[in-house]
């Protein structure tokens, strides 16, 4: 089952490497050290959170820690679902690599070792991609014309994550986006993102109740 997991991880690896390279390059462009960028990928192993961390660290340390963790709170749901479907004997090990893509692929699994196979390849490709990005970053950034396009990778990543998660949650995306935009306009960007994450579920539930009545 472990080998089957390794094979099944190929699409994940193909998807991870370019994003990890972009993360490595972006992290260095934003001001992270090479070791720090690789360390982030080795310890966190969560794409959107890592991008959020590097983009918020210059604005507010508290937000740079809280918002990435809040972003990953959806993994609480993943953990619940996986452990209900599969007999998880070593959660300490299995939990580390439970990313969005690993979770989605694991839904077809019936053995914990299959998930380990997925996680090993996904993790190695993520760290390797970051390393490539970090090492090639200096070359890419030596030409300043690249910088805005590399920073745009953050926008592109959040956009893709948004369109892949928006189904049935359009109102939440709209409320979150508008809330953040208003705070962003008045110069309270980080606070706006945090409030968007906390207030939106309440607003959506209220709207749903009003609609039902």
């Amino acid at each position, binding site marked *: 089952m472990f080998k089957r997991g390794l094979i099944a991880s190929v*699409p994940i690896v*193909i*998807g991870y490497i*370019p*994003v990890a390279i*972009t993360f490595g390059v972006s992290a260095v462009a934003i001001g*992270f050290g090479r070791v720090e960028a690789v*360390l982030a990928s080795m*310890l*966190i192993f*969560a794409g959107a959170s890592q*991008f959020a*961390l590097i983009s918020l660290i210059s604005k507010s*340390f508290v937000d*740079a*820690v809280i918002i*990435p*963790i*809040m*972003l*990953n709170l*959806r*993994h*609480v749901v*993943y*953990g*619940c679902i996986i452990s*209900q479907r599969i007999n998880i004997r070593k*959660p300490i090990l299995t939990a*580390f690599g439970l990313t969005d893509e690993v979770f989605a692929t694991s839904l077809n699994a019936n053995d914990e070792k299959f998930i380990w196979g997925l996680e090993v390849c996904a993790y190695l490709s993520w760290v390797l991609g970051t390393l490539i990005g970090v090492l090639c970053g200096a070359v890419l950034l030596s030409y300043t*014309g690249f910088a805005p*396009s590399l920073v*745009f*990778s*953050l*926008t*592109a990543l959040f956009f*893709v994550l*948004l*369109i*892949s*998660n928006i189904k049935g*949650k359009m109102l*939440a*995306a709209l*409320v*979150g*986006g508008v*809330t*953040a*935009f208003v705070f*962003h306009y008045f110069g309270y*960007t980080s606070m*706006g*993102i945090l409030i*968007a*994450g906390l207030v*939106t*579920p309440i607003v*959506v539930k209220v709207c749903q109740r009003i609609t039902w009545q």
Partner: protein
Amino acid sequence: MSTHHLAIVLVAIGTYLARFLPMRFNEKFKSKWLDEFLTYSSVALISALFVTSLVSFPVKPIDLSVSIAALIFVFISYKKWRNLGLSVLVGIVVHLIFSLSMRLYPL
């Protein structure tokens, strides 16, 4: 330990616990309300991050136009291939081409 290191370690611990705790204490995390809250909160956060990374004040119309044009290509490539990494890569390349074009041939 620098601020960056501390932030990385704290986010790593938080991320790991979010993945580990529901697996370890599965029975205690069964709540429909929590599921819904987290689902809407995640989408709202991604949307908020997207909006604030796309728009910066004061708005520079040319920069914003280039980004929006590149996002159209990101959207098309994601709809076609369903590959997150590839779509981001397409976005970067298109953004770079448009940015360079704007520098070489300003409106």
